[in-house]
């Protein structure tokens, strides 16, 4: 088919561009990482009032993408929704990569990176953060196991290849050799079990990230029963949006994944609308409740110095335009759906920043930010160069991992007996 060929060609051009961008981002990130490792936190702009900054926002951004991508993969592997056949592996792979990026971001944020293991060795079970680390660990192992089972027979088959890919697959197959249909069926059974365990796990850890913020009674903006739920919902929105984008580029891109785009689009549209409803509810309750401390933080979001993050990035780019695209006939145009995905993902950078920073920027005690004349004792925050560079570098790592992953997991073979008619099979 002509159109699919041009799509593929465009896809290849896009991929080269992405590789260039990825490597550039990584290189840009290196000086930032160097500064972080050599000078600790001196180069960062967060302080004692705004205790968390861009890196924590980045962390919840990625962790949301991971939980969302995983939950969407479970629609296929646990609930058997064959519409998602094309992107099942891709969703799982996305979940692994974004989880890795999230942990990388939060690792950078630690005062003593070498002590990260303390959280496991000396867990305080009253702390949501300790729970988080344990749940991440199980989730990470589960994701890897599930992805490996899905790939196992492909690894075995490809390990005969003479090139680098064969060598990599030889390692990745971990000694497996069976490619029979029974073995694949057994794999799928295990995948279903793992996925079924993973669903509550993903809900727990991402709801838990919401609880990590929500339980902090000292910060009224976070301290709402909606927070864990909002985190879960927004995970599906952002994870789904990222999948729309990735599915359009990854592997054979749209020529392969065309059929799944409108389905993903509808899923993202529905959850995005629900997310908007939740946000409105939160705003209404806070503003009509009128408690000054609550209102102050939201005022910073809506009318503060960085109002444009809310109105422009979060609302305009991340909400209104994607809703217009996905609610109109444009949803049948895969390229438009991919664009909507890109916009939602970009908008979510704003969402995450607006969760972390204004809540901290609102003074806990009136007059606090003026008590000591020191930039660390200020409630004004804008990320420093180091923070930006590290963030860009981590994003570059993510793009590179996607680039490598694509070479290895590309051959998306439908599982036995579940052939789905695709728009491009001609």
């Amino acid at each position, binding site marked *: 088919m002509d159109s699919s060929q041009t799509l593929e060609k465009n896809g290849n051009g896009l991929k080269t561009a992405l590789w260039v961008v990825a490597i550039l981002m990584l290189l840009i990130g290196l000086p930032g990482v160097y500064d972080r490792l050599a*000078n*600790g*936190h*001196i180069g*960062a702009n967060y*302080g*004692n*009032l705004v*205790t*968390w900054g861009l890196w924590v926002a980045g962390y919840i951004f990625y962790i949301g993408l991971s939980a969302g991508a995983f939950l969407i993969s479970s629609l296929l592997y646990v609930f058997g929704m064959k519409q998602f056949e094309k992107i099942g592996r891709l969703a799982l792979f996305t979940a692994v990569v974004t989880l890795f990026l999230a942990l990388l971001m939060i690792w950078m*944020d*630690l*005062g*003593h990176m070498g*002590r*990260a293991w*303390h*959280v496991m*060795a*000396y*867990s*305080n079970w*009253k*702390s*949501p*953060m*300790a729970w*988080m*680390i344990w749940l991440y660990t199980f989730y990470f192992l589960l994701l890897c196991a599930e992805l490996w089972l899905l790939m196992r027979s492909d690894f075995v088959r490809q390990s005969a290849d003479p090139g680098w890919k064969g060598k990599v697959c030889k390692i990745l197959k971990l000694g497996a050799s069976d490619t029979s249909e029974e073995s694949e069926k057994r794999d799928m059974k295990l995948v279903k079990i793992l996925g079924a365990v993973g669903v509550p796990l993903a809900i727990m850890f991402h709801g838990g990230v919401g609880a*990590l913020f929500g*339980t*902090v*009674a*000292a*910060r009224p903006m976070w301290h709402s029963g909606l927070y864990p739920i909002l985190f879960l919902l927004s995970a599906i929105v952002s994870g789904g949006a990222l999948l729309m984008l990735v599915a359009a580029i990854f592997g054979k891109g749209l020529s392969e994944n065309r059929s799944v785009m409108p389905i993903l689009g509808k899923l993202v549209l529905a959850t995005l609308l629900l997310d908007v409803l939740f946000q409105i509810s939160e705003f209404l309750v806070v503003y009509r409740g009128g408690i000054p401390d609550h209102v102050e933080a939201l005022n910073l979001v809506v009318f503060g110095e960085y109002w444009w993050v809310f109105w422009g990035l979060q609302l305009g780019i991340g909400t209104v335009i994607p809703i217009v695209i996905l609610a109109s006939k444009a949803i049948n145009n895969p390229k438009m759906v991919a664009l909507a995905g890109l916009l939602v993902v970009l908008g979510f950078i704003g969402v995450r920043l607006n969760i972390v920073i204004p809540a*901290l920027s609102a003074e*806990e*005690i*009136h*007059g*606090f930010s*003026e*008590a*000591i004349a*020191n*930039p*660390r*004792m200020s409630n004004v925050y804008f990320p420093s160069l180091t923070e930006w560079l590290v963030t860009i570098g981590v994003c570059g790592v993510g793009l590179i991992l996607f680039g490598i992953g694509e070479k290895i997991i590309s051959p998306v073979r439908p599982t036995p007996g579940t052939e789905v008619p695709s728009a491009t099979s001609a």
Partner: protein
Amino acid sequence: MKKDEATALDTKSTAPAEVSRRDLVTKFGVIGATALAATLAGVSLSACASASGATSSSSILKRRYGMVIDVRKCIGCRGCVLACKVENKTPPGVNYNVVLEQAFTVRPNDKPVFQTRPCFHCEKPSCVDVCPASATFKRESDGIVAIDYDRCIGCRYCLTACPYGARTFDFGENYPHTSEGSPFAAVPSPEYGQYRERSAHKSPIGNARKCTFCEHLQDDNGAYDKKAGRWPACARTCPGHAIVFGDLNDPESYPSRLLNERQAIRLKDDMGTEPNVYYLI
């Protein structure tokens, strides 16, 4: 109420009911007796609270250090801030206490209210609960909330969770006169009696830090001595005697007597943190 609980136990289990009831009655008896004794002795609220606390759990706080800060005596000189800096050798940005200034816009002729804010060493510290690595804790012996610098990972969750902003993070910055290599830099902080050499990548750099009520000035028995100068630096320095430090478990201590005689408030009491630092306003 006693009876109700005993009956409730009876319905749950039949055989050991008698034992449970007897235990229960004894336990309540003890609480009643101590409460009665306390009331008879005319002991204040704080002693009463500790008496019931003692019977309900085996851990008895020997002392419970706290402060009573008289806002009307504070002149806003910020001597406490400086004294703390000198005592604990805290770097820039690390502040164990701050002085907040509140001007009343509706009453422009009133003098501003100054309010020094150390760590409140809460009975239920939210900072301790959120620490993922159990690196911060409330000491059973005297109620001081301390940090294990070697265990703290520097996630700053405690800074975030403290409703009073009482914790700060050591970013590794130095004053010009205390920069690495300068003679003043060689003077270590006496915190926790550890006398740590300050250098990059080493604790307390990269850690959360907070007021310890200058616990390094305690003797081996955990007691301070005001006459000998072993007294929290801010309270020792305050020229208006606005900061009154002492053992709130001791009914005869100065802060305990102030709490008895005067009307005190605690900041954000509705948070349930139960600070051990009170304000007289």
